[in-house]
């Protein structure tokens, strides 16, 4: 998939334009020089026109074999090391001598004949036969690339026509010497060896003029050579500012060291002119910061780059873009933190083949003020001492020192209030009347329902609470259960909690004088499923369902399943904690009718006890509950006042 750099849309591989926004897509394959189709990198031939995409690397076979390996018209000459291949083939054939293969012998003979023919022919004939084909017969891109095809064949073993034209005669020894010298001195020895071995006389000629070589090739050669490190080359007038800016150059000691490493420098008069220039070229940017070597070419280099008309399309895409960053400010190296030792900015990664749509992406990154501020903040955080958090924790602890005091204050006030109200009747023998049993509760309705039960009725009691809630719910459920036992109705107790049956057994053991007055059905696993199964599988529908719980979920399960199975045919009542009152209110609505009545908390339980004319635990604890409520309200008011005064003081200070 190719992702559009403009809108991010994923396009099919090989697409040239975005299917969403129509912008051109970056090329990720090899563009065919014939038709421009983008092919996968691994392709040798174009999928559209079958043109060869990769250069030829082997000599053609005889008897027509290997015709598909013949260089095709339109193959980019600059990327085809044909001369190298032919030269190596010739050298290999001469080295094999007698006993070699027939086709090698033939090849050697043909090569010798070609050499003799070239020596015998005068220059005029050579010029005549070397004339390039009519320019009008060539396509534009091929015309831009220079001579191809037959010219290259004619100059087989001696380099391309447009490189070998007007070249001087070089001896084999000179070529070998030049090869050795270049192989030692060149940073890219393959390049020099290829040129020399291929007999590229144009490359070895002493007076190679820029006019004889296409501009783009000369520029590429200079660019390639300039990027490498070569001692001895004097910078040109245009390169002088760059040299000064880069602050590079070899000292005498360094040059001596280079000679010790690379050997004695060849004599300039024995080398071609262009090779001498290469050897005299200073080691540009050897010691320069990495940012300089990684930066795009400067403006003056871009100005000298070949014109668009001189370069084929595929090479134009290789052309570096963007502005030079030589004048970018050089930050000091990081001294601490994760980035210690690093310097400068990391340049954006350049794609293999740039497209015009990526111009903006390849522009140099200029940090904004916001980015700099964030970087400074990060640096300050990285350099922050580890003792500061401890100080912050210490401050927080000192700031929250009043919390235990508040806890102790609240606890002492509540304990004193509750214990005082519980111990007061023991000390004085009289019960304080801080409040009255709840009026306006559902206790009277529940009392009427239980009071209407006959001895033959069956009541299903759901005991869904455990030990944590027993201190409250035992006192609330006790009067209702006592009323049920007194009514003579059959009581079946079931629970959907494992700890429910022991709670029921303990409470019913206190209420009923005999265990024959009730049945413990035990624990039923499955929550809602167990409730549904229990209600549906009952052999005989119960007359009344009593839910004793403190949890909204349990109440909801029982009410919903009873309503779903029996509708309003099964009266449901509930006994719960004060926490449950807001939950049961919607079910207690007269129009809903899902709960006939309910008792919540000590206050309504005390009201139920009052209806029965007895004083139970709920009534005894009611005053303590009322006193506790008063204490809580007082604490809330005091806390609000203290907080308000403290807040005002804090704001004032």
């Amino acid at each position: 998939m190719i992702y559009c750099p403009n809108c991010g849309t994923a396009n099919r591989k090989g697409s040239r334009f975005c299917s969403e926004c129509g912008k051109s897509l970056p090329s990720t394959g090899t563009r065919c020089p014939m038709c421009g189709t983008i092919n996968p990198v691994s392709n040798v031939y174009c999928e559209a026109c079958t043109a060869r995409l990769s250069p030829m690397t082997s000599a053609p076979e005889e008897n027509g074999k290997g015709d598909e390996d013949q260089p095709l018209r339109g193959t980019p000459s600059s990327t085809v090391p044909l001369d190298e291949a032919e030269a190596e083939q010739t050298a290999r054939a001469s080295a094999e001598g007698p006993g070699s293969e027939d086709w090698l012998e033939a090849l050697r003979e043909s090569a010798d004949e070609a050499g003799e023919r070239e020596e015998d022919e005068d220059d005029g004939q050579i010029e005549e036969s070397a004339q390039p084909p009519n320019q009008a017969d060539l396509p534009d891109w091929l015309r831009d690339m220079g001579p191809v095809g037959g010219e290259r064949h004619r100059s087989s073993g001696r380099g391309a026509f447009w490189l070998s034209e007007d070249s001087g005669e070089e001896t084999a020894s000179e070529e070998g010497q030049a090869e050795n010298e270049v192989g030692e001195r060149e940073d890219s020895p393959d390049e020099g060896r290829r040129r020399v071995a291929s007999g590229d006389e144009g490359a070895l000629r002493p007076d190679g003029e820029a006019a004889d070589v296409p501009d783009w090739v000369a520029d590429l050669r200079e660019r390639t050579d300039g990027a490498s490190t070569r001692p001895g080359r004097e910078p040109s007038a245009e390169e002088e500012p760059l040299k000064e800016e880069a602050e590079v150059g070899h000292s005498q000691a360094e040059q001596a060291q280079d000679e010790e490493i690379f050997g004695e420098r060849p004599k300039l008069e024995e080398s071609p002119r262009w090779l001498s220039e290469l050897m005299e070229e200073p080691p540009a940017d050897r010691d320069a910061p990495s940012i300089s070597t990684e930066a795009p070419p400067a403006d003056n280099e871009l100005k000298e780059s070949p014109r668009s008309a001189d370069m084929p399309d595929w090479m134009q895409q290789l052309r570096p873009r963007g502005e030079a960053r030589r004048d970018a400010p050089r930050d000091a190296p990081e001294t601490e933190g994760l980035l210690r030792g690093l310097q400068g900015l990391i340049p954006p990664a350049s794609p293999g083949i740039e497209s015009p749509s990526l111009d903006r992406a390849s522009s140099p990154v200029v940090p904004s003020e916001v980015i700099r501020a964030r970087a400074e903040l990060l640096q300050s955080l990285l350099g922050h001492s580890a003792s500061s958090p401890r100080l912050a924790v210490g401050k927080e602890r000192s700031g929250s020192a009043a919390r235990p005091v508040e806890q102790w204050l609240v606890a002492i006030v509540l304990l004193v209030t509750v214990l005082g109200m519980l111990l007061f009747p023991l000390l004085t023998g009289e019960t304080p009347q801080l409040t009255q049993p709840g009026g306006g509760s559902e206790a009277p309705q529940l009392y009427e329902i239980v009071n209407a039960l006959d001895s033959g009725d069956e009541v299903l009691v759901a005991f869904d609470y455990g030990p944590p809630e027993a201190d409250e719910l035992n006192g609330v459920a006790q009067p209702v259960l006592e009323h049920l036992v007194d009514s003579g109705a059959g009581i079946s107790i079931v629970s959907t909690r494992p700890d429910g049956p022991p709670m029921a057994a303990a409470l019913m053991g206190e209420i009923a004088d005999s265990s024959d007055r009730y049945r413990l059905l035990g624990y039923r696993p499955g929550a809602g499923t167990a409730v549904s199964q229990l209600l549906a599988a009952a052999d005989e529908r119960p007359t009344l369902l009593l839910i004793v719980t403190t949890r909204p979920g349990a109440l909801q399960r029982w009410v919903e399943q009873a309503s779903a199975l029996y509708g309003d045919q099964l009266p449901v009542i509930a006994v719960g904690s004060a926490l449950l009152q807001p939950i049961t209110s919607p079910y207690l609505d007269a129009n809903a009718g899902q709960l006939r009545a309910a008792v919540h908390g000590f206050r309504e339980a005390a009201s139920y006890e009052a209806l029965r004319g007895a004083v139970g635990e709920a009534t005894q604890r009611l005053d303590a509950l009322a006193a506790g409520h008063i204490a809580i309200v007082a604490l809330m008011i005091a806390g609000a006042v203290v907080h308000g005064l403290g807040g005002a003081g804090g704001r004032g200070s």
Partner: protein
Amino acid sequence: MNPELVGVIAGTALTFFILSYLVGDNPLYRLGLHLFIGTLVGYSFGTVLREVVVRTALPGLVSRPASVGPAVLLGVLLLFKGFPRHAFVGNLSMAYLIGVGAAVAVGGALAGMLAAQVAATGRALAPASVGNLRFGLADGVMIVVGTVSTLLSFTFVRPKAQGGQEWWGRLLGGVTWVGRLFLVSALGIAFAGALTSSLSILIGRMQYLVDAFCGLAGW
């Protein structure tokens, strides 16, 4: 020693262990907490083992193997969930449990709660039903207004006011504000209930200590 006395002493000690949290997290509080949780879990496990395995599954395999056998098999498969490499074996049991549980819960919620509550809200202002309400018509109006406004308070977006549609946005904003008042009131009542319930538990625990102290003192 009287076992009841031992129970009272242990209960009193554990109560003070839990109350010692006032001075912060301490070993006594941790001891009481762990004892309580461990005892509860152990008792629950024992209860399940007794009620499900001993009283239901084993006798059922003998008397009703056709009906109890598959249930026991599913339960046995569920044990593989404890072994990560073979946990997939228990997926069938988990699927059965979740499927049946969801079906029961959804059916109960629709038929037992949603339909009943919607119908009750619709009948709140009916003349025949107003008489059954505690506060008559005011109660019915409160139910309808509270239900509608609370539901509308969960409207987090509204159409952009254009031209003559500004009144709709203002009306929706007013209803939403009323609904939030109902919500805040309901949350306040729930918090008050939780506080009262906690205070009731504290009172019950203090009552237990007082009774234990009076019992030991012979009062």
